[in-house]
């Protein structure tokens, strides 16, 4: 017996629309985190053409700083997320020290490849150093609940406020960063350094300080990413930044590395691909598809989705 199309559509809606929305929400949740992390990658790359592989580990630094400063925030009668202020300071400090101790001397002596390898080395130093610090140690630590749960419901599926907040914060950070690089003196200096270092020096720009500031901002962003990540996935461990950083890097490349809105677009796409693969293709193939998408996009558009194909000035 054939059923009327209206009935079938209604039935399809009942069983599938909520699954679709749930998948979309999980994708946005993951994607918003990737976007926040990708902003840090893209920012540093945009200025000094260095892929800072240690960026993922700055998130770990931010996570542990928050864990250790949460009791302090509580003791002062403040909400736990206030500890992110300490995390921003700690991350910016670690980021700027990395630039001063590792990247700057290497840039003077070596090529962009040596700088890249140094970034990988810094990443591993941070992971192993963290493990050697007794209060951190090798055990993962589960954090306290950072944001109160709750949200609004669409078709019987709950969208958590934390997810909405992460997306809003990513968007705000993106806009502020973009405006900062376009409108302010420091931002203009950053763009100048990015285009031509020697000419910047002739123009009276302190190149070293500009790069240092870029690292400070980029690393500080990773603390905000850590806050939003822990708000949804409350576990900190020393290698937490590895896969997160890699996927965010992929997101930055996908959107067009060095382009600030590209990081946001790329992050959300990666998150959605991961989530939709889990639901509709195979739950164990999510990562396969993420990296497959990267390869396909790079073949079609080598400069990334928002990138322009221009010859690089060497």
């Amino acid at each position, binding site marked *: 017996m054939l059923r009327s199309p209206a009935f079938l559509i209604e039935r399809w809606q009942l069983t599938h629309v909520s699954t679709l929305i749930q998948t979309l929400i999980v994708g946005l949740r993951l994607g918003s985190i990737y976007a926040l992390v990708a902003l840090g990658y893209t920012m540093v790359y945009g200025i000094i053409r260095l892929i800072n592989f240690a960026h993922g580990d700055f998130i770990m630094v931010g996570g542990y700083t928050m864990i250790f400063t949460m009791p302090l925030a509580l003791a002062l009668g403040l909400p*736990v997320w206030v500890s992110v202020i300490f995390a921003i300071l700690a991350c910016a400090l670690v980021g700027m020290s990395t630039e001063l101790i590792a990247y700057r001397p290497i840039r003077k002596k070596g090529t962009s490849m040596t700088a890249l390898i140094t970034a990988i080395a810094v990443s591993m130093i941070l992971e192993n150093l963290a*493990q050697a610090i007794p209060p951190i140690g090798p055990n*993962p630590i*589960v954090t306290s609940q950072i944001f109160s749960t709750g949200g609004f419901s669409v078709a019987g599926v709950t969208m958590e406020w934390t997810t909405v907040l992460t997306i809003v914060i990513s968007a705000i950070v993106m806009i502020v960063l973009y405006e900062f690089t376009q409108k302010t003196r420091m931002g203009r200096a950053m763009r100048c350094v990015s285009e031509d270092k020697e000419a910047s020096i002739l123009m009276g720009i302190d190149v070293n300080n500009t790069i240092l500031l870029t690292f400070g901002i980029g690393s500080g962003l990773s603390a905000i990413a850590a806050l939003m990540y822990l708000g949804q996935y409350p576990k900190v461990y020393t290698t937490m930044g590895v896969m997160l950083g890699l996927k965010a890097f992929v997101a930055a490349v996908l959107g067009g590395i060095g382009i600030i809105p590209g990081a946001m677009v790329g992050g959300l796409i990666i998150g959605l691909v991961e989530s939709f693969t889990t639901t509709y293709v195979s739950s164990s193939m999510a990562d396969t598809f993420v990296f497959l998408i990267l390869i396909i996009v790079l073949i079609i558009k080598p400069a990334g989705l928002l990138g322009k*194909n221009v010859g690089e000035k060497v």
Partner: protein
Amino acid sequence: MNKKKLTSLVLAACMAASLTACGTSSTKTSTSPAASAAAGASGKTITIGTISPNTGSLAAYGSAVTTAVDLAVSEINAAGGINGSQVKVVNADDQFDPTECLNAFNSLVSQGIGLIVGSVTSGCTSAITDAANEEKVCLLTPSATADSITTKDDFVFRACYADSFQGAIAAAYAKQKGFTDVGVVYCAADTYSKGLYDSFSAACTKYGVNVKAVQSTASLDVQDYTNQFTAMQKAGLKFVYAPYYYDVIGPYVVPQARAAGYKGIIMGADGYDGTPKYVAKGADLSVFNDVYWTNHYDPADTSTKVQSFVKAYEAKYNSTPNAISALAYDAVYMYKQAIEKAKSTEPQAVRDALADTTAVYTGVTGTFSLDSTGTPAKGASIISFTSDGTSVTTKLVDVVKELPKA
């Protein structure tokens, strides 16, 4: 130029990933295995090697093993040792990484150690079972439950039951509670999780329980399980078997399953041991109600054997021993009994003593004999989490001595 650069970036990224995978390595040099692995017991002391994940995501298991082995050895030494010889322990870290586990094994063997307790996880232990048979070194794993760990009468033994038993108990429990349809969420890339899924679904077929939906994750590093449990909820299931370890069950799996609208039973295995220490403080912990798991022993057991172990452990380390500790403790005493019987510490002689299926071991985790593969035949405890919303505690539900008939 641009294309080339991006390609090299991607390559570099892949390299970074593969490098960081071994980034946490403590350099354990793996020299060529010594020819005479039997030298371990030369002189007045007997050396037992232990392999455990002292660092990495399952580091809690590492300390569980090292503390319990130290307790057992100090008890044995205080009581005069084994056959008059004092016992010494050499520990090696496998970082919950199969490659590092093999390095740890080789390093112990090259030190002339022929009696090894380890490793803890099925994934790591499966990397060294072949090597143990080749080197003719006794390998007694306290807690690697995967069936594939030992299937023959060889040098590999264990102190725990196998997954075919553990998974079947969960299936029998589902049937006993009247569930006709069940679901599974598991990790396709992990020996332990996959092994439990296989044995659970095989037992479900035997008991006439229908495995209606199966979802998997690609690795144990996945942090989002929402889509998997949405699928379970959409399939109308009220019982889901989710064999994972405590470090994802506490912060991720259970809270996300409940947030996805899944309200039914979540059942797991011995990997859930330790979860109450891995939950987010301040979150609504009532989500942990209706979570059940199978375990090797219950620390609240009133038998004198269990209580004297729990009291001694608590006195020494100021915390309640988990099942891994109990099994590691039993493993040391199994070696003691085998060495006394063999009147030798030669790996071959100890192996023959352990391979005797008539020997009865009275341990913390039960009184048992080993079968022809070297796996104990013993019962399991079914334990549940209960929560008042602010903390999670465990409760003994049932003790299963043997599997019900189909």
